[in-house]
């Protein structure tokens, strides 16, 4: 299985993540990309600032990858990348890409991976509004509106 895990100070690329998991036996690639949105609870977001415990975060990414490989043995590639520092509206902060022979495994593993990442990846997010800032904690699964 191909794998790629990265905490990056620079911009993330969906195409780059996809190329990391490409495999001739894969018929499916599922990718999730989290981007900075312009509002939270009705307040205007100017930008986000992410801070990571970098060596642990890259280790946790690899653990998530191994969990995925155990749950979905057909998976042929996993890439997880998270950005640190300032991330402006519309820019990606996280990418999870999974390849597999069939779409069911790729889609399920990708969705599970981003859920798991939000639970255990040692990364912190500060939302910077036009008139203040706040450290935003992830909610438990199912805690966000659909």
């Amino acid at each position, binding site marked *: 299985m191909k794998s790629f895990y990265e905490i990056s100070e620079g911009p993330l690329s969906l195409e780059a993540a996809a190329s990391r998991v490409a495999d001739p036996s894969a018929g499916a690639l599922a990718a999730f990309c989290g981007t900075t949105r312009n509002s939270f609870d009705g307040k205007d977001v100017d930008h986000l600032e992410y801070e990571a*415990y970098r*060596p*642990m*975060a890259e280790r946790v990414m690899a653990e998530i990858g191994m969990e995925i490989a155990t749950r979905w043995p057909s998976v042929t590639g996993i890439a997880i990348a998270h950005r640190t520092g300032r991330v402006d509206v519309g820019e990606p902060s996280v990418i999870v890409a999974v390849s597999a022979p069939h779409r069911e495994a790729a889609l399920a593993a990708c969705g599970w991976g981003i859920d798991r990442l939000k639970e*255990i990846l040692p990364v*912190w*997010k500060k939302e910077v509004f036009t008139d203040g800032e706040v450290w935003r904690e992830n909610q438990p699964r199912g805690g966000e509106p659909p």
Partner: protein
Amino acid sequence: MAVRLFGPAREAAGSERVAVEVPGGATAADVVSALEARYPALAGLLPRSRVAVNLEYVDGDTRLGPGDEVAILPPVGGG
């Protein structure tokens, strides 16, 4: 013993690394208690934070050895 702080804990303490005195054979929970006593600014966050030792999440009863890298990890917000 040196303790690394991240995110809101780092900001509250005003430093990314603080020191606490704990006896030999202390546990992760002992370090948290020592931090609570010495850094009141962390009091609200510590009960909601997890502890990592050598890049792995640990329980409070994990015993620490010399040279261990200990970190306080507030509720995460990645993604």
